[in-house]
C-alpha cells in the first residue's frame, strides 16, 4: 500500500523535469555527455595516451628574406621515411638516401625518386670522382649506383654500416656500428677487405671522410677518431680532443675540417696538421651533420630543427621553419639543403583534421583525451553523489527523528566534518594511501555528506512534529517504519534535488583535485588535462589545450544544475505556486 507512494514521489520529479525547458535542455546535454563517456573508445580518434610521432623525408632549403635575413624554409616532403645522408656530385646536384630503401637524386629538375630494390635502411652515400655512387646501410648492405643501375656487393658480415667515403676513383672506406673498417676495392670485381681497428672495443664509427693528405679519417662513439692510411693499409688512433659521440664529419679540399656530435659538440681544424679546437655552440642538443668550406665558413644541423652557421666569429642558431630532426646537409652548388627527419614528436600542434583538438606537449591527441575525460567526471560525479546521499540522508533521518544523544553525536560529527577543508584533506588521504580513483571518490563524499545531513535533518525536525507522523506513532508504527515509510517519502524531493546538486559539486571537486595533481594516476580527466596544460607552461599559447576541458566541465555541471532547478519546485511547492 505504501509502495505506490514511492513510485508516485519518484515519478513526480520526472514529470516536472520534462515540463521545464531549461531542464529538458540539461537532460539532453547530459545524455549526450553520458553517451560520449560510454562510447569513448569508438568516438576517440587516437589512443589518448600515445605519443604521436611522425616520420618524414623532410627537406629544408636556405632562403634569404627581403631584409637579407636567413630563413631555412620547409620544402615539400619527399616521402614518409627519414633521409639519413646525402652527398653532392660536384655538378650542382647530389644523391640522398634514407630509411626503408629511400634513394633520391637532386638535379636541375629538383628531386627524383630512384628507389632501391629492398626496404633496408640506407645510412650513407658517397659519390666518387667518376660519378658512381656507393651506398651503405643496415645488414651489411653495400651497393653501387652507376647511372640508374644498381650493383650489389656482398659483405663479409651483416653489420650495421654507418658511413662510406671514396679514397680514390676505385677504392672506398666503409665504417660500421661495431667498429668495422672495411676497404672496398672496385678495380676489378668488388673486393671487401676488413681492416683491423687499433681500438678493438666495438665502438661505433659514425662518419668517415677523405682528408686533405689522402688519408681517411673516421669518427664515432666517445670521441673516437681513427685514421686510415691507404699507402700503409693501416689504421691508427687519432685525437679530436673530445669524449662525446661524434655523428658527422666534413673536410674541405684544402683541409678545413669540422666534426660534430652529441650535446652540441663541434670541433674544428683549420688546416691539415693543426690542432682540433672545440667550439662553443648555441644549443646543447645533438648535432648530426656538418659542412665546412675552403674559406672556413661552416654549417651544422642537428635534432629539433637546429641549424647553426658559423659567421667567421661564432656559431649562430638560424631560424628554421620546422622542429624536425636533421641528419644530413647537401651543398649542391649555391643551394644549401638540410635533410631529415627521424620520428619527431608532433607536439603542441594546433587543431587540424588529424587532431581535432590539437595535441599536447607530448604529442598526445587532445580530442581523445577530452572524450575519455568524461568517464572519470561522470563516474566520480554519480558514484560520489550516490555515496553522499546514502550517508547524508540516513544520518539526517536518524538524527532528526531520534533527536537526543543520537542527534548530538551525529550532528557533532557533522560539525567536525565541517571544520575540515577539502583540498588539504584530500592531500592527506593521498599521502596516507596511494592516489587512486577510490581516494578521489572518498574525499569528495566524506566532505560533502555533511551538508546533506544537515538539510535532511532540519526537514525531518519539522516533519516529525506533523500530525501524520504523530498519528502513525499513536497507531503503534515502529521507528524504522515511521522513518522510512512516513517521513522519508516526504523528504524525497529534497533528496532528489540535493542529489542533482551534489553530482555537479562532485564533478567540480574531482576536477579540482585533478587540477592540483591529486587525481588518480594513469587516468585521463578534464581537470587532469588542465593540470598538464598549466604544468607544461604552454597553456598561454595552446588555447586548444585549455579551452575544451573547462568547457566540458562547465557544460556537464550546468546541465545537472538545470535539472536540479526544476526539482527545486517540488522540494518547495510554494515556489511552484508563484512561478
Amino acid at each position: 500500500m505504501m509502495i505506490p507512494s514511492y513510485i508516485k514521489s519518484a515519478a513526480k520529479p520526472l514529470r516536472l523535469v520534462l515540463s521545464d525547458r531549461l531542464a529538458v535542455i540539461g537532460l539532453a546535454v547530459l545524455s549526450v555527455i553520458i553517451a560520449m563517456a560510454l562510447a569513448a573508445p569508438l568516438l576517440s580518434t587516437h589512443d589518448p595516451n600515445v605519443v604521436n610521432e611522425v616520420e618524414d623525408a623532410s627537406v629544408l632549403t636556405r632562403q634569404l628574406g627581403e631584409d637579407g635575413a636567413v630563413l631555412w624554409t620547409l620544402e615539400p616532403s619527399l616521402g614518409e621515411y627519414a633521409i639519413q645522408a646525402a652527398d653532392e656530385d660536384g655538378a650542382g646536384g647530389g644523391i640522398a638516401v634514407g630509411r626503408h630503401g629511400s634513394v633520391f637524386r637532386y638535379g636541375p629538375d629538383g628531386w627524383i625518386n630512384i628507389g632501391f630494390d629492398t626496404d633496408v635502411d640506407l645510412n650513407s652515400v658517397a659519390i666518387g670522382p667518376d660519378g658512381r655512387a656507393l651506398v651503405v646501410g643496415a645488414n651489411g648492405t653495400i651497393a653501387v649506383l652507376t647511372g640508374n643501375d644498381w650493383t650489389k656487393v656482398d659483405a663479409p658480415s651483416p653489420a650495421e654500416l654507418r658511413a662510406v667515403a671514396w679514397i680514390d676513383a676505385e677504392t672506398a672506406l666503409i665504417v660500421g656500428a661495431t667498429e668495422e673498417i672495411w676497404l672496398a676495392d672496385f678495380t676489378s670485381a668488388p673486393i671487401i677487405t676488413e681492416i683491423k681497428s687499433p681500438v678493438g672495443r666495438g665502438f661505433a664509427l659514425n662518419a668517415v671522410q677523405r682528408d686533405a693528405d689522402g688519408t681517411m679519417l673516421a669518427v664515432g662513439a666517445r670521441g673516437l677518431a681513427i685514421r686510415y692510411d691507404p699507402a700503409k693499409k693501416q689504421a691508427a688512433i687519432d685525437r679530436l680532443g673530445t669524449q662525446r659521440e661524434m655523428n658527422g664529419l666534413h673536410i674541405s679540399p684544402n683541409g678545413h675540417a669540422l666534426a660534430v656530435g652529441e650535446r652540441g659538440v663541434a670541433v674544428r681544424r683549420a688546416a691539415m696538421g693543426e690542432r682540433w679546437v672545440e667550439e662553443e655552440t648555441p644549443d646543447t642538443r645533438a648535432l648530426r651533420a656538418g659542412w665546412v668550406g675552403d674559406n672556413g665558413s661552416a654549417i651544422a644541423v642537428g635534432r629539433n630543427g637546429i641549424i647553426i652557421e658559423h659567421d667567421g666569429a661564432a656559431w649562430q642558431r638560424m631560424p628554421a621553419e620546422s622542429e624536425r630532426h636533421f641528419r644530413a646537409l647537401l651543398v649542391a652548388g649555391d643551394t644549401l639543403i638540410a635533410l631529415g627527419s627521424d620520428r619527431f614528436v608532433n607536439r603542441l600542434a594546433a587543431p587540424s583534421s588529424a587532431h581535432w583538438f590539437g595535441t599536447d606537449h607530448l604529442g598526445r591527441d587532445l580530442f581523445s583525451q577530452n572524450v575519455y575525460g568524461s568517464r572519470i567526471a561522470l563516474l566520480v560525479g554519480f558514484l560520489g553523489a550516490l555515496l553522499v546521499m546514502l550517508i547524508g540522508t540516513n544520518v539526517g533521518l536518524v538524527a532528526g527523528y531520534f533527536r537526543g544523544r543520537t542527534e548530538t553525536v551525529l550532528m557533532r560529527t557533522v560539525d567536525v566534518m565541517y571544520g575540515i577543508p577539502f583540498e588539504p584533506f584530500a592531500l592527506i588521504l593521498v599521502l596516507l594511501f596511494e592516489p587512486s580513483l577510490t581516494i578521489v571518490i572518498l574525499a569528495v563524499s566524506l566532505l560533502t555528506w555533511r551538508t546533506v545531513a544537515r538539510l535532511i535533518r532540519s526537514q525531518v525536525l519539522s516533519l516529525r512534529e506533523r500530525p501524520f507522523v504523530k498519528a502513525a506513532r499513536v497507531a503503534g508504527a515502529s521507528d524504522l517504519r515511521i522513518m522510512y515509510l512516513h517521513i522519508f517519502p516526504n523528504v524525497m524531493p529534497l533528496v532528489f534535488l540535493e542529489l542533482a546538486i551534489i553530482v555537479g559539486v562532485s564533478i567540480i571537486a574531482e576536477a579540482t583535485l585533478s587540477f592540483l595533481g591529486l587525481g588518480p594516476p594513469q587516468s585521463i580527466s578534464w581537470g587532469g588535462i588542465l593540470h598538464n596544460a598549466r604544468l607544461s607552461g604552454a597553456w598561454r599559447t595552446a588555447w586548444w589545450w585549455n579551452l575544451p576541458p573547462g568547457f566540458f566541465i562547465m557544460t556537464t555541471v550546468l546541465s545537472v544544475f538545470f535539472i536540479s532547478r526544476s526539482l527545486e519546485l517540488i522540494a518547495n511547492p510554494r515556489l511552484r505556486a508563484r512561478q
Partner: protein
Amino acid sequence: MKACTRRLGYSLLVSTALAFGAASVASAQERVPAVTIGTTTEAYDPIRYEAAFIIAEKWRELGLEVNIQPTEFSTLLGKFYDEQDFDATIIGWSGRVDRLDPQFFLGTLDSRQSAPGGNNPGGYNNAKYDELFTAQSQEFDVEKRRDLVHQLQEVYTPDAPLTVLFYRDEVVAYNNTAFDGMNAMAGEGLYSEWGPMQAKPLGERKTLRIGGPQEPDNLNPLASTSVWGWKWMRLYYDRLVRLSPEVEPVLWAATAINAVDEKTIDVTLREGMTFHDGKPLTAEDVAFTYNYYKEKKFAYFGAYLAPLDNVEATGDLTLRFNLSQPSASFANIALSQIPILPKHLWEGIDNPGELTPEAIPMVGSGPFVHKGYSRGEIMSLSKNDTHFHADDIAVDGVEFVIYADMEGVFTGLQTAAIDMTAWRMEAGQIPLAEKQENLTVVSVPDFGYYHLTFNTRRDPFGDAATRRALTMAMDRERMVNVLLDGRGEVGHSIIAPVNAFWSNPFVEQFEFDMDAARAALKDAGYSWDAEGRLLK
C-alpha cells in the same frame, strides 16, 4: 606501424620460446612475479612519471609483469630510503656544486651506506668497490685519485645496480636588455654565487632581480636545510674558499692553505676584512664558526665536518685545522661550504636552531649585506662597498622575488619584473622564451642524475645478469628525445660526462637493444611460456 612491429616481435618471441621450451625444462620453471616501479606523481615531476611508462612498456614486451606506482614525493623517499620497501624506484640526485667532488655520488653505492636511511637503499654490495672507495677518499694525489675514481666506475657498471637514466639540462633564461655578463655554472644555472657578482647592468636599474618558484625554509645559518636558503646566504657570508665558475677552488677569505700533513691544514686569512657591523674578522671568528657548527651538531654540514676534529686560531690571521682522519675532499668542499659567522654575535646563543626570525643575527662579511626578507614575497641585499671584491661587482644590490611556481616566474620574466630565473623553465615555456627577443635562453648541463635503482635484496633484481638485461631494455634515448625534447643526455655513469675530470668515458654502456636483452635473459636461465610470459 608500431603495433605491427610489436606483434611481429611478439610472435617471434613466442616461437623462440616454444622452440627452446620444448628442449629445456621450461615446464619446471615458474612465472616471474610482478615487479613494481615506484616513481613520482605526475604533478611532482612529469618526466620521471612518464619515464616509468617508457620502461614498463619495454619490460612488459620481455614478458615481465610490471606495475607502476606513482607516489607523493615524500612518501616515495620514505619508502625508498627509510623502509627500503621497493622493487625498483625512479628517483634522482641533484647536482649541487659540492657534489662535483666524486665522493658523494660514489658513496651511494658503498655497502656501508646500505642500512635503512642510508644513501645506498638498493643494497649494492661489492667488497672491491668498498675498498676502492675508501682508498680514493683518502688519496691526496689528484691524478692517483682520478685513476681510482675511474676504476670505481668500471667496477660497478657491469653489475648494473642502478641505471642512470639521463642527465637533464637546466634551461634558464635572462633578460639581455637589463643585464649582461651572465655566466651559467654546471649544476647551478645562472643563480650561482658568482652570478650577482658578475652581472653587468645595462639599464637604469642596477639591482639584479632574480625570480624563483620557491623560497628558503629560513635564513638561519644554523637551521636552514634547503638549497634555497644556502644559495641566498652564501651571498652575504664569506667562505675561506669559493668554487669558481669552472668549479676550481679559489682562495677567498683565505690567502693560503697548506696541508702540513694528511691530518693538519694551516690556513692564513686575508687582511682587513670586516663584518657588516664594522667589527674586524679574525682567525678567532673562523675557528669559532667551525667549532660552533661541530658543537651544535648542525646536521646539514655534518658530512662536510665529519673528518674535522677541531680548529684552533694560531694567530690573528692564522688557523690550524686538525682532522681526525685523512680526507681528500675536505679542503675543497668543507672550506668552500661553511660560512664565516661573527663570534661576537653568536657565542652567546645556546640554542641557535630555536631563534625566531627576528632574533637571527644576519651579519656576515660577504660581498652583499642583508637588507630585508618579507616571507613569501621578496628577499633583498645591498652591495657591501667595503668588501675586498667590491670593485669587481657592478650591481648595487640583489633582490630575490618569490613566486608560487614557474608559471609565475615566467610571467615575471616576460613582463621584465625580474631579470633572470633561478630555476629551470618548464618545457612549454622554453620555445616562448626563445621567441622573445629580449630573453636569452641558456642550457646548462647538469651532473646530477635521474636513476632507476634496483632493490638488489629482492628477486628478480638480486641477480646482476637480470639487471643487465633489463637495463638493455630501457629506451633511454627515447626518454631524452620525447620527454626532454633532446635537452639532456643518456646516462652511463653516476659521474656525469660534464664532470669531465672524474667521469670515465669508457665504462660499459647499455645500448637499447631488445634482442640483446632477450638473449641476456635466456643466458641468465629465463624462458618464456606459450603466452610469452617470463619464467624462471
